[in-house]
C-alpha cells in the first residue's frame, strides 16, 4: 500500500470539489448543457414529424387511370392526401402548389402510370423486368437540417409497402429536388441533404474550435501578464492603453486564424474521406446545383466570423481580468463555452425555423450562433439573414469592446478580483492595512 496515499487523496478531492470553478465548469455546466441539447433535439424531431403529418401529402394526378386511384387510396391509409388533377408542372407551378398546400414535397403520378402498371401486372417475367411504373417525387431542398430528408424517406416507405401488396418492384420513384425555386431532375433531396449534412457540420465544428481556442489564447495571454506581473509594468509605460487591448486581440486573432486554417485543411481532408464513400450513382455536383456560396456569400461569412471572433476575444479579455492567474482564467472562460457549444451542436442537426419561438429567440440572441446561421444562409443565397446577423453581432461586439476598453483604461484591470473580496465584506466598517 502506498504510504500517505489515502490522506493525500482526501486533500486533493477537498481542494478540487471546493473549487467553485471546477464544480461549475466540469460538473454543473455539462449536467445542464447536454440535457438541454437533448430536449432541443427531441423537440425538433417531434415537431418535424408533426409538421409533416399536419401538412399531409400532396399528389398531382396527371394519369387519371385505375391504378392512380388505387395508389392514392393506399397512400390515404397513412396520410391525409390532397389531390390536384391534370397539372403541367414547371418551376412556377411547383412552387405555387407547395405554397398553397403548405408542403415541402409532393408526388406526381405521371401520364401513362396506369398503363404501365397494367402491362406490368399482365406481363410475363421478361416484361416485368423491363416495364416499371414510375412516380415522380419533388422535394424542396433548403439545407436546413437533418430532418429535411423526412419527406423523401416517408415516400420510400409508402411505395415499398405498396409494392409488397401489389407486386415487388412494380412502382419506382424518380426524385427531383427543388433548389432555389428550380426543379433539378434526378437529384434526390435526401441524398443531397446527407451530402450537405456531412459538409455542413464542418462549419459549426470549425467555428466552435476557432472560438474556444482563440478565447483560451486571449484569456491566457492576459492572465499570463497578470501572473508574471508584466501587466503592471505595461500599464505604467507611456503607451495608449487601448493599444494593449488591441495588441492582445490582434495577436490572438492571428494565432487562432492560423490554427483555424490548419484545422480546416485537416477537416476538409477528413470530410473528403466520407464523400468519396458515397456511391458513384448518387454523386452530386454541388457547384452546378448552386449549393456553394458565391463570392459575396464568402465575404459575408468572413465578416460574420470576424465580428463573432472579435466579440469572443474581447469577452475573454474581460473575463480573464477577473482571474489572478492562467489556471483561473481558463476555468472562468469555461463558463461561456455553453454559449458556443449549444448553438453549434443544435444548429449542426436542426433547422432553426422549426424550433419553438422561445428557443428560436435564444439561439438568435447568442452571438456565436450567427456565423453558423450565416454559413447555411449564404449557401442558399439568403443574404438578408446573413446581413442582419452581422449587424446584430457587430452591435454586440461594439458593446463588449467598449467594456473591455473601459476595463483597460481604469484600475479595474488590476483590482477586479480585489473588489469581489470587498463585496463579500460589504456591511462591515473599513479595516486598515493593505500591502
Amino acid at each position, binding site marked *: 500500500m502506498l504510504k500517505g496515499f489515502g490522506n493525500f487523496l482526501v486533500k486533493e478531492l477537498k481542494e478540487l470539489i471546493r473549487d467553485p470553478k471546477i464544480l461549475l465548469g466540469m460538473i454543473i455546466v455539462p449536467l445542464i448543457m447536454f440535457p438541454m441539447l437533448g430536449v432541443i433535439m427531441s423537440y425538433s424531431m417531434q415537431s418535424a414529424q408533426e409538421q409533416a403529418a399536419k401538412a399531409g401529402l400532396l399528389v398531382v394526378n396527371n394519369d387519371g387511370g385505375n391504378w392512380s386511384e388505387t395508389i392514392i387510396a393506399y397512400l390515404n391509409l397513412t396520410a391525409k392526401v390532397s389531390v390536384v388533377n391534370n397539372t403541367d408542372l414547371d418551376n412556377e407551378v411547383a412552387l405555387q402548389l407547395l405554397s398553397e398546400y403548405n408542403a415541402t414535397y409532393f408526388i406526381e403520378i405521371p401520364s401513362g402510370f396506369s398503363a404501365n402498371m397494367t402491362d406490368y401486372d399482365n406481363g410475363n417475367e421478361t416484361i416485368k423486368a423491363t416495364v416499371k411504373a414510375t412516380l415522380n417525387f419533388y422535394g424542396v431542398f433548403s439545407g436546413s437540417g437533418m430532418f429535411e430528408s423526412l419527406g423523401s424517406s416517408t415516400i420510400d416507405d409508402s411505395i415499398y409497402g405498396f409494392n409488397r401488396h401489389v407486386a415487388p418492384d412494380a412502382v419506382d420513384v424518380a426524385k427531383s429536388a427543388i433548389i432555389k425555386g428550380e426543379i433539378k431532375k434526378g437529384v434526390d433531396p435526401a441524398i443531397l441533404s446527407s451530402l450537405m449534412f456531412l459538409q455542413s457540420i464542418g462549419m459549426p465544428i470549425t467555428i466552435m474550435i476557432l472560438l474556444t481556442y482563440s478565447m483560451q489564447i486571449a484569456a491566457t495571454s492576459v492572465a499570463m501578464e497578470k501572473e508574471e506581473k508584466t501587466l*503592471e509594468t505595461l500599464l*505604467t509605460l507611456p503607451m495608449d492603453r487601448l493599444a494593449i487591448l488591441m495588441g492582445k486581440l490582434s495577436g490572438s486573432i492571428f494565432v487562432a486564424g492560423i490554427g483555424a486554417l490548419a484545422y480546416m485543411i485537416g477537416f476538409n481532408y477528413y470530410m473528403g474521406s466520407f464523400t468519396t464513400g458515397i456511391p458513384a450513382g448518387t454523386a452530386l455536383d454541388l457547384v452546378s446545383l448552386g449549393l456553394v456560396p458565391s463570392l459575396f456569400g464568402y465575404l459575408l461569412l468572413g465578416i460574420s466570423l470576424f465580428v463573432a471572433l472579435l466579440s469572443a476575444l474581447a469577452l475573454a479579455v474581460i473575463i480573464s481580468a477577473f482571474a489572478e492567474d492562467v489556471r483561473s482564467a481558463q476555468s472562468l472562460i469555461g463558463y461561456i463555452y455553453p454559449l458556443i457549444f449549444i448553438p453549434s451542436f443544435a444548429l449542426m442537426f436542426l433547422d432553426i425555423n422549426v424550433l419553438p419561438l422561445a428557443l428560436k429567440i435564444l439561439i438568435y440572441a447568442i452571438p456565436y450562433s450567427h456565423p453558423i446561421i450565416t454559413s447555411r444562409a449564404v449557401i442558399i443565397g439568403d443574404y438578408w439573414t446573413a446581413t442582419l446577423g452581422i449587424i446584430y453581432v457587430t452591435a454586440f461586439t461594439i458593446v463588449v469592446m467598449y467594456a473591455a476598453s473601459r476595463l483597460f483604461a*481604469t484600475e479595474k484591470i488590476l483590482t477586479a478580483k480585489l473588489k469581489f473580496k470587498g463585496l463579500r465584506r460589504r456591511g462591515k466598517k*473599513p*479595516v486598515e492595512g493593505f*500591502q
Partner: protein
Amino acid sequence: MDIAIELIDLTKDFGTLRALNRLNLKVSFREIFGIIGPNGAGKTTALRVVSTLLLPTSGAVKVFSLDVVRDAAEVRKVITYLPEEAGAYRNLSGWEYLEFMAKFSTKGKDEVREIVKEAAEITGLGERLKDRTKAYSKGMKRRLLVARALMNKPKLAILDEPTSGLDVLHAYHVRDVIKRYVQEHDVTVLLSSHNMLEVEHLCDRVALLNKGQIVAEGKPQELKEKFGSANLEEVFAKVVGLA
C-alpha cells in the same frame, strides 16, 4: 527644495478595506526615498497610486507637479515602475526584452541601441542576455528588470522591493546600480522595502508605514537618534509599541 513627489491626504480604499489613510509626504528631487513597513502596511498600494496604476479614493498625488489622475499620461512619460516580484516575458531573450521596453521611451534606432547597450552593462549578464528569460534565475531576472527601470534615465524610478528575495551578491549589485544612477543621471527614486537595515544604508530619507498610516518620517540617522535606537528595526518596534 525641488519637489519630485507630493502626497496630499492620500487615502485609498478597496471596498471596505482602507489601505492608505490620509498620507502626507514630500520627496525631493534626486532623493532616494524609502517607504518601509511590514507586510500589509500599504507600501505597494502607495507606490501603485504614485505610478498611476491605482486611483486615489481621496486626496491627491503630484509627480513633478503633475496630477497622477488628471495628467496620468504625462506622468507615465517621466516615471518607470518596477513591481515586486515582476517577471519578464518568458519567451523573449533578455536583450529582446530590453529592446521592447526601450522602444516605448524613444523612437530612433540608434537611441534604442544606445539605451539597450547601457542597460546590458547595468545587468552584468553578458552573453546570458541572448538566452530566453525563462532560463534566468530570480537574481538574473531582477537585475534585468532593474536595468529596464533605470535604462532610459527616468526622472522618477518607483521600485517596489527592488532586492526582495535576492542573495547578498545580487542585492549588492542592485543597490549599487540604484545609488550610481541617482548620482550620475539626476534620477529620483521612491522605493519600498520591508528590509529596514538595507533601506537604512540606501535611502536618504524614509517613511515608516504601518496599517496605511505614516508613523514616522526622516533621515535614518535622525530617526535612530530621536528614538534612541541602534537601527531602523528598533525604531519601528518602538513607534508601533512592540518594544
